[in-house]
């Protein structure tokens, strides 16, 4: 019964989403204010129905209902409870439903938020969200229904993809989708503003906290996926420029640009049409990511099973939503003019440069990701684009961006004559350079190269960002959350640059064959291989290796890299053995049995690698703090915090 109930709830949700979209968009357009009253009930009803459908699917998984095709394909009687729940979004159909559920959550949150806004505007926002929801519900029902029955029921399930049987990866999709879907809110605000034909600074103030929150969720989602790849895939890397990774990174880059351009729009009413465009593009890239992952047009490790029919549907949806939005943009954006001026070194200028560099970075990633498709479509032959393209081309806009931020945090709105604020910039720059020199020449050793430049930039950014907030605290001034959040995110970017540079430059690694009792010397540590023992999990068996790590004769830790064989799918997974030691990760992955007791092992010492993810988590925290700033919490809060305008240090 439950699957049928879920299916029925989805159909009702589709109808209610249709009503939500119709009343939300038609009532203001036709001037029928009485219809506005229908928007909220439709929205609430849609959310309840979506939640019901989701609960039904979860229940089918929890209760091992192998008469449901999707459950039979992605679960198994030996699968632990937590992974049976995570299995709900372990494949295409269920993850699509998760997308819809999260959109419903955002919609409800927005519905509460817009109740304080002008009713017509609020109705339009909910109407656009209803339209997005409608499209995804239709997609699910037409091509990807998770509630289809198997007759006869399968005796047992084919198990969840072993790659996904991991806590981090169980959480990765919900967080990532929360970010993706959150950009739908900014998108809806943008469409509503264009339909109204009016975009003022209040609009930017309403839109900003939603965008910040979505961006922060997306950051955490990406970081979790990267962390998972590091310890689960056994390659020892954390970013592979895989098309699916890129699909999540492009909206992140554009979203970062958007939260900065919203700052200028909120403060000065500047860059209005540009902000609108970014809001449309950020969400479009989220949709495009969904398309790339599910249509099978690109080769990727993470792709869901390719299905061109789904691709056609999503493409049609993209054309309607994005094409419609951009057509509306072409029609309405020319009306948005601003006469606000600013000087060359003002904060507005820096926000502009920031946006240009971030969009260039996103466009570079986009070009590389789409290049195989573009080249093929243009008859230029097949080609592959890998890290060897992305790494250098991505640095091109990003290194200048880091320097830019280090300077920009000292700029003022409107007026910019650098000399006034030159001292902290120069001092922090010199100190940063000194630290980088000390690290490169003194601590790590080796020739200074690009590593020196980017370490110095990272240290400069950290120090420079801290100058003003520390100064304010010393003078006994309060720090609003927006400023704490901004500072945290900028410091985190500096930490990120330092961590990535260090990992990329100073990782010691060796792939080596060892017999029991043999020792490898890597990066000042001794790794003694003590052989392997068999292990027995709930739905897998396998071996774990024992590697005794010591330094200067002193034992440090014993690592247990595992090699698991998941019984149902007969697939082999690696679980690296990792210990963090004095800021470094000691990493061992177990390779193959080479016979005669010898195994191949990958041994790596990766300094500061944890700070890569920690930095992203800090950025996200900064985003949440800024989103919860006082001026967004009350309907008619003053636009500026006391004592803020003179300093000019607003986020």
């Amino acid at each position, binding site marked *: 019964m439950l699957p049928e109930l879920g299916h029925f709830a989805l159909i009702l949700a589709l109808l209610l989403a249709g009503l939500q979209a119709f009343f939300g968009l038609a009532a203001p357009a036709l001037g029928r204010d009485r219809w506005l009253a229908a928007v909220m009930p439709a929205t609430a009803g849609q959310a309840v129905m979506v939640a019901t459908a989701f609960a039904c699917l979860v229940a089918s998984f929890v209760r091992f209902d192998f008469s449901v095709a999707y459950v039979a394909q992605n679960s198994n009687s030996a699968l632990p409870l937590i992974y049976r729940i995570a299995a709900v979004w372990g494949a295409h159909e269920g993850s699509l439903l998760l997308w819809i559920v999260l959109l419903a959550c955002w919609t409800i949150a927005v519905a509460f938020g817009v109740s304080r806004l002008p009713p017509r505007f609020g109705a339009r926002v909910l109407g656009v969200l209803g339209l997005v929801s409608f499209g995804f519900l239709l997609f699910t029902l037409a091509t990807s229904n998770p509630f289809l029955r198997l007759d006869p029921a399968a005796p047992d399930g084919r198990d969840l993809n072993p790659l996904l049987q991991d806590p981090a990866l169980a959480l990765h999709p919900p967080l990532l989708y929360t970010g993706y879907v959150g950009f739908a809110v900014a998108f809806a605000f943008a469409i509503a503003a264009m339909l109204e034909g009016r975009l003022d600074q209040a609009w930017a103030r309403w839109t900003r906290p939603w965008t910040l929150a979505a961006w922060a969720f997306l950051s955490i989602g990406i970081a979790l996926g990267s962390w998972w790849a590091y310890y689960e895939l056994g390659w020892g890397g954390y970013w592979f420029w895989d098309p699916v990774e890129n699909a999540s990174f492009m909206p992140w880059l554009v979203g970062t640009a958007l939260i900065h351009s919203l700052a200028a729009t909120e403060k000065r009413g500047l860059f209005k*049409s540009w902000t609108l465009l970014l809001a449309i*593009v950020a969400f479009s890239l989220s949709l495009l990511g969904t398309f790339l992952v599910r*249509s099978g*047009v690109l080769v990727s490790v993470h792709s869901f099973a390719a299905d061109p029919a789904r691709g*056609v549907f999503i*493409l049609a949806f993209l054309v309607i939503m994005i*094409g419609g939005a951009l057509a509306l*943009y072409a029609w309405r954006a*020319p009306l948005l003019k601003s006469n606000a001026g600013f000087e060359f070194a003002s904060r507005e200028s820096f926000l502009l440069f920031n946006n240009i560099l971030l969009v260039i970075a996103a466009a570079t990633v986009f070009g590389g990701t789409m290049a195989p498709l573009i080249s093929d479509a243009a008859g230029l032959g097949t080609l592959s684009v890998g890290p060897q393209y992305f790494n250098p081309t991505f640095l091109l806009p990003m290194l200048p961006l880091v320097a830019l931020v280090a300077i920009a945090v000292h700029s003022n709105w409107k007026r910019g004559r650098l000399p006034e604020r030159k001292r902290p910039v120069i001092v922090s720059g010199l100190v940063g350079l000194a630290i980088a020199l000390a690290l490169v020449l003194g601590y790590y050793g080796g020739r200074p190269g690009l590593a020196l430049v980017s370490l110095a930039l990272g240290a400069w950014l950290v120090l420079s960002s801290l100058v003003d907030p520390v100064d304010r605290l010393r003078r006994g001034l309060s720090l609003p959350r927006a400023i704490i959040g901004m500072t945290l995110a900028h410091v985190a970017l500096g930490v990120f640059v330092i961590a990535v540079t260090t990992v990329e430059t100073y990782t010691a690694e060796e792939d080596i064959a060892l017999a029991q009792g043999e020792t490898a010397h890597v990066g000042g540590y001794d790794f003694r291989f003590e052989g392997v023992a068999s292990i027995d999990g709930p739905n897998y068996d396998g071996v774990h290796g024992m590697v005794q790590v010591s330094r200067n004769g002193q034992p440090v830790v014993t690592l247990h890299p595992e090699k698991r064989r998941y019984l149902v799918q007969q697939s082999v997974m690696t679980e690296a053995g990792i210990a963090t030691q004095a800021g470094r990760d000691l990493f061992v992955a177990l390779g193959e049995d080479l016979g005669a007791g010898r195994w191949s092992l990958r041994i790596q010492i990766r300094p500061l690698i944890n700070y890569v993810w920690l930095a992203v988590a800090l950025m996200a925290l900064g985003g949440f703090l800024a989103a919860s700033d006082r001026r967004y919490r009350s309907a008619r809060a003053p636009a500026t915090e006391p004592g803020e305008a003179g300093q000019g240090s607003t986020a």
Partner: protein
Amino acid sequence: MNRFLLPLAAFVLLAIVLAIGIRQSNTKGIVVSPLIGRAAPEFVLPNLLDATKRFDSRVMKGRWYALNVWGTWCIECRVEHEVLVAARQEAKLPIVGLNWKDEDTEARAWLAQLGNPYEAVPVDAEGRVAIDYGVYGAPETFLIDPRGVIVYKRIGPMTPEIWQREFVQRAAGAS
């Protein structure tokens, strides 16, 4: 032109690229061989069925033939095997079976049990000839013309239709 139309124009281009991508997505993973229209690499390898002689690919010059890459470890090769056996009985186009990264005893047992569709079976135990032919998965089948030029390449298991249309008819049509 109105610069606010640029994003829409860019999106239209993108949609076209994506549409072409979807149309071609069922052949994704099939890599078009750069060797088509080029001379088939020549090779001399041990002969699975006659340990005393080596197989020299130049003996096939002057005739149309198919070069089929197979191995007993390859599931899809089992699927196509009967198609190849039938093709040999039909005797329109000789097939050379390149035995790729396999065990000789198992390969002989396979042919003894399932029938031998091949005129000759060169043994590429180290996979070097397969690299020269750009082989990236078994089964693959090349059609080679009398001058020794690769005319066509089939990736994946042979079917009767493909054998007739792409192999037999091409060879018959040209000669």
